[in-house]
């Protein structure tokens, strides 16, 4: 039973129709295999440098050898320019990089990104291991980086009392921001005693409780000299520091573990001093700028009030007052005219409404029947309607309402009569 489908396919192809690959196809296939293999990517290889040369374009070529094998290597200009060691044939080195296929020549080669002398190999392995470990623990994370105070009034420095670093730092702090005081925690910054000494310095400055920011570092030196800043205890002390730490070790090209853990990395001690404080001259001009702004705003405000007062003054002159009165009179006129017009309109509306209501009243007026010859008899003196003979006695006075007036009568006699009724 075959496990590998590609072998299976190849066999199948042999018996049926053999597939013909181009050189490019196969080369690219091999290249993909290389690039997919973690054993070949970002690795360190130990060997001896042979046939070292530099091309006109600035790339470096050499062959890495051991007792039995050779590996062609190239280091491109960008990386080669930052390389600290000077390569020569026969030198034992540790090369960092990835193995890749060079398709044009059909061979594989190492693309080197860094080269260290062999003597330091073990140190670098330890460095990489510690770096990975602390990174995995999260010590380099941005979320732990503390911001630097904008105006530190007390600046701590952990470095050698006699080194070049402290001189550079004091010179720059004194020039840029003499308002701040400096507290030096002198430390050994080289050799075996260095790590505990640096750790103590960081802790002492923290224990003071009034240090705003600290610079931890030293001037340039050999890689071994700077090695104490790759110590785990130093890294942990920097991480634990409540006071923000600016790490300043060696030169621009030196990267230490301390740099990664610190709140900010400065390329050099001088750069650290520049980073930590503002420039007093800038501050002065900022301050004077603020004052100028302040004054001009104040002048503006006063001028505005003066203008207001001046304009009140103008308003108080007789001519203006008269204008004001006339203006008000005119306003009043307009309002009155408007009022009269609406009043007239209202009256007209009311009259029309009354007429309409009067007509409606007419239609139901019981006295309208008088026009047709009917009359209404009212018993005097109470003017009660007489609708039956029992309502009056002989001799009673009666008022008879007709169309155009009243007739006064006296009852002479009364008798019952049968009237016609519809039912």
């Amino acid at each position, binding site marked *: 039973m075959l496990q590998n489908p590609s072998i299976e396919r190849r066999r199948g192809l042999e018996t049926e129709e053999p597939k013909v690959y181009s050189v490019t196809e196969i080369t690219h296939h091999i290249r993909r295999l290389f690039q997919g293999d973690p054993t070949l990517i970002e690795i360190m290889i130990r060997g001896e440098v042979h046939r070292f040369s530099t091309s006109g374009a600035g790339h470096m070529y050499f062959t890495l050898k051991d007792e039995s094998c050779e590996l062609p290597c190239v280091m491109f200009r960008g990386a080669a320019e930052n390389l600290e060691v000077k390569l020569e044939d026969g030198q034992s080195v540790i090369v960092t990089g990835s193995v890749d296929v060079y398709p044009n020549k059909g061979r594989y080669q190492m693309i080197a990104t860094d080269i260290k002398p062999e003597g330091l190999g073990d140190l670098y392995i330890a460095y990489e291991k510690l770096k990975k470990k602390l990174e995995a623990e999260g010590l380099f994370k941005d979320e732990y980086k503390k911001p630097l105070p904008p105006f530190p*009034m007390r600046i701590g420095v952990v470095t050698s009392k006699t080194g070049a670093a402290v001189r550079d730092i004091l010179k720059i702090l004194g020039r840029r921001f003499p308002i701040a*005081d400096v507290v*030096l925690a*002198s430390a050994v910054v080289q050799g075996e005693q260095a790590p505990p000494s640096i750790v103590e310095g960081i802790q002492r400055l923290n224990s003071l409780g009034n240090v705003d920011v600290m610079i931890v570092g030293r001037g340039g030196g050999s890689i071994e000299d700077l090695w104490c800043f790759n110590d785990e205890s130093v890294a942990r002390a920097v991480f634990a520091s409540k006071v923000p730490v600016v790490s300043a070790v060696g030169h621009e090209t030196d990267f230490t573990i301390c740099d990664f853990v610190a709140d900010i990395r400065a390329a050099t001690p001088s750069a650290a001093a520049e980073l930590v404080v503002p420039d007093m001259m800038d501050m*002065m001009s900022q*301050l004077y700028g*603020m004052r100028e702004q*302040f004054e001009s705003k*104040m002048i503006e*405000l006063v001028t505005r009030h003066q203008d207001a007062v001046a304009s009140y003054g103008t308003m108080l002159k007789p001519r203006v007052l008269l204008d004001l009165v006339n203006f008000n009179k005119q306003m009043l006129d307009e309002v009155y005219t408007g009022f009269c017009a609406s009043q007239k309109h209202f009256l007209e509306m009311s009259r029309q409404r009354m007429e309409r209501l009067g007509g409606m009243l007419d239609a139901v007026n019981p006295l309208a029947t008088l026009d047709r010859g009917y009359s209404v008899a009212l018993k005097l003196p109470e003017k009660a309607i007489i609708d039956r003979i029992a309502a009056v006695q002989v001799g009673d006075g009666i008022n008879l309402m007709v169309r155009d007036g009243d007739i006064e009568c006296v009852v002479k006699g009364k008798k019952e009569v049968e009237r016609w009724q519809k039912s």
Partner: protein
Amino acid sequence: MAEELSFEEALKKLEEQVQVLSDGKLSLQEALENFEEGIKLFKFCNEKLKEAEQKVTELVEGDKGLEEKEME
């Protein structure tokens, strides 16, 4: 007032005063008070900057624990 402030606080206050004045919502009386305060703050900051002379001390182990000793 200004004596108890740190340089940073005074500078921040001055900035605020300028801002308030720039907003133009103050009465003349308030603005004058604000202005006077601002000028005081300015003088305070300015003097701090001018008269500052850096003091450099070294941390040393003394009789009573850590001490700061003036350098040079």
